[in-house]
C-alpha cells in the first residue's frame, strides 16, 4: 500500500535531459504519482541554459511557473521580456508563447498546469521524454517499456504513436516505424506530417518511398 505521504529534495529528483539536452527536467509528478494536476521542475546547470522550452500550449493547460531559486529571464507573448528572480510567479494562458533562460547557475523553475474544465490527464510528452532519455543511455528495453506504458494509458494519443515511430526508426525497425507513423498521421495529419518532415529521429526512413508518400512529399 502506498504511504500516506512522501518527501523528496529538489536535487534528489531525477534529472532527465529533454529538448535535445537543452533542458534538465525533474519529473515531480511522476516521482510522486500525482494524478490530479501536472507539476514538474526544470533546472539549469549554467547561466544561459533553457529552463522553460519555447512552446505555446495551444488548446492546452493553464500553466503557472514559479522561480524556486536562482534567476530567470522569461520571454512571453509578443517578445515581452520578464525579469524573474526567485519567488516570481508567471501565469501563462494557453496559446501564449513562452520560453525562459537561466541567468544564474542552479536556477530552478517549477511548472504546474492542468486544463480548465477537464479531468486532469498527464501529458504523453512525459513518457516520450523518459523513453528517449533511456534510449540515449543505451537502455533500449526500458525505453520500449516506458513508451508502451504511455501508449497503454492513452491509446488514442497520436503523440504516443509518433514517439513510437521515432523509437522504432532509431532502433532500425523501419516497418514498425512506418506503421506507427501511419497511426499517428491518422490521429493528427497536419501536425504529424509537419513534425515528421524535419525530425532527425526519422532520418533512417528518408528515401523510403513509403515514408515520402506518408509525409506527402
Amino acid at each position, binding site marked *: 500500500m502506498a504511504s500516506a505521504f512522501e518527501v523528496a*529534495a529538489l536535487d534528489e529528483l531525477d534529472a532527465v535531459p529533454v529538448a535535445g539536452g537543452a533542458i534538465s527536467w525533474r519529473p515531480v509528478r511522476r*516521482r510522486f504519482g*500525482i*494524478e490530479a494536476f501536472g*507539476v514538474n521542475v526544470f533546472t539549469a546547470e549554467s547561466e544561459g541554459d533553457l529552463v522553460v522550452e519555447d512552446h505555446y500550449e495551444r488548446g492546452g493547460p*493553464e500553466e503557472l511557473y514559479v522561480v524556486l531559486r536562482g534567476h530567470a529571464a522569461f520571454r512571453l507573448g509578443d517578445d515581452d521580456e520578464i525579469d524573474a528572480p*526567485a519567488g516570481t510567479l*508567471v501565469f501563462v494562458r494557453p496559446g501564449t508563447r513562452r520560453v525562459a533562460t537561466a541567468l544564474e547557475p542552479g536556477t530552478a523553475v517549477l511548472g*504546474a498546469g492542468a486544463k480548465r474544465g477537464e479531468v*486532469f490527464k498527464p501529458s504523453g510528452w512525459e513518457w516520450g521524454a523518459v523513453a528517449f532519455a533511456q534510449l540515449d543511455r543505451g537502455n533500449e528495453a526500458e525505453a520500449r517499456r516506458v513508451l508502451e506504458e504511455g501508449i497503454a494509458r492513452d491509446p488514442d494519443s497520436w503523440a504516443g504513436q509518433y514517439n513510437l515511430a521515432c523509437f522504432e526508426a532509431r532502433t532500425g525497425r523501419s516497418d514498425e516505424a512506418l506503421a506507427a507513423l501511419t497511426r499517428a498521421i491518422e490521429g493528427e495529419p497536419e501536425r504529424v506530417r509537419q513534425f515528421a518532415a524535419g525530425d532527425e529521429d526519422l532520418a533512417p526512413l528518408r528515401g523510403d518511398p513509403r515514408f515520402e508518400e506518408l509525409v506527402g512529399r
Partner: protein
Amino acid sequence: MTEHPYEVAHLNQLDRVPSFQGVTWLPIRRCFGIEAFGVNAFAGDAGKLVIEEHDELGSGGSGTQEELYVVVSGRATFTIAGEETDAPPGTFIFVRDPAARRKATAAADGTVILALGGTRGEVFTPSAWEWVAPAIERHGAGDFAGAASVVRDGLERLPDHPSLLYNLACFEARSGELDAALQHLARGFELDPKMREWAQKDEDFAALRGDPRFESAVAGQPEPYGEFT
C-alpha cells in the same frame, strides 16, 4: 473582454490574508484567476504555524485533494500523520492520503510554502475554504455583513455548497437576518446533516435559540410551522 495572455507577480507582492489557526495565506489562484488546479502559498516567521492542521476529508469547506507542498524559502517542520519532517528550501512533500492530518511550522523567518492541489479524476473546483477564510476574518472583526457578502460571492461560484450555506447562516444570524439564516441553515442541513451537531453548539446562532423553527431544524424534526420562507 480579452484576457491578457500572461500575468506576473512576486510572492512578496501578493495579498497576505489571515486565515484559520492564525496562518497567513497568499492567494495565488485567486490572484491569477486560475481555474484548472489549486495553488496557494502560506508564509510565516520562526515558530509560527504556516500550514494549518487539517486533513482533506471534506469537512469545513476543504476538498479531498491530493496536495503537494514545496518549501520555497526559510525552513519548516512538517507533521504529517504524527510524523515530523524537517523541510529546508527545495523540499517537496506530497500528501497522497486525504485522511492524513498535516501541519507545518516555520523553523526560520521568512518561510514560504507553496501548496498545490486537485482531486484525482475530477474537474477542479476551488475549495469553499477560499471564501470561508476571509469571511471568518471579517467575522472576527465584527463585520458580519461583510463576512456574509464574501460568502455570497462564494455561493455564486459554488452554488449550494453546504459549508458556505452554513457560514452564511452564521453571519446572517449575527447581523439579525434571522429568516434568511434559518433558510440557509435548513438547506445546509439537507445537504450535510452533520452540520446539525455544529449548530447545536455554535455561538453564532445565539439569537435563534428558543425559536421553535431553529430547534426543530437542529433536532432534525419537521419544521412545526411549515417552510421557513
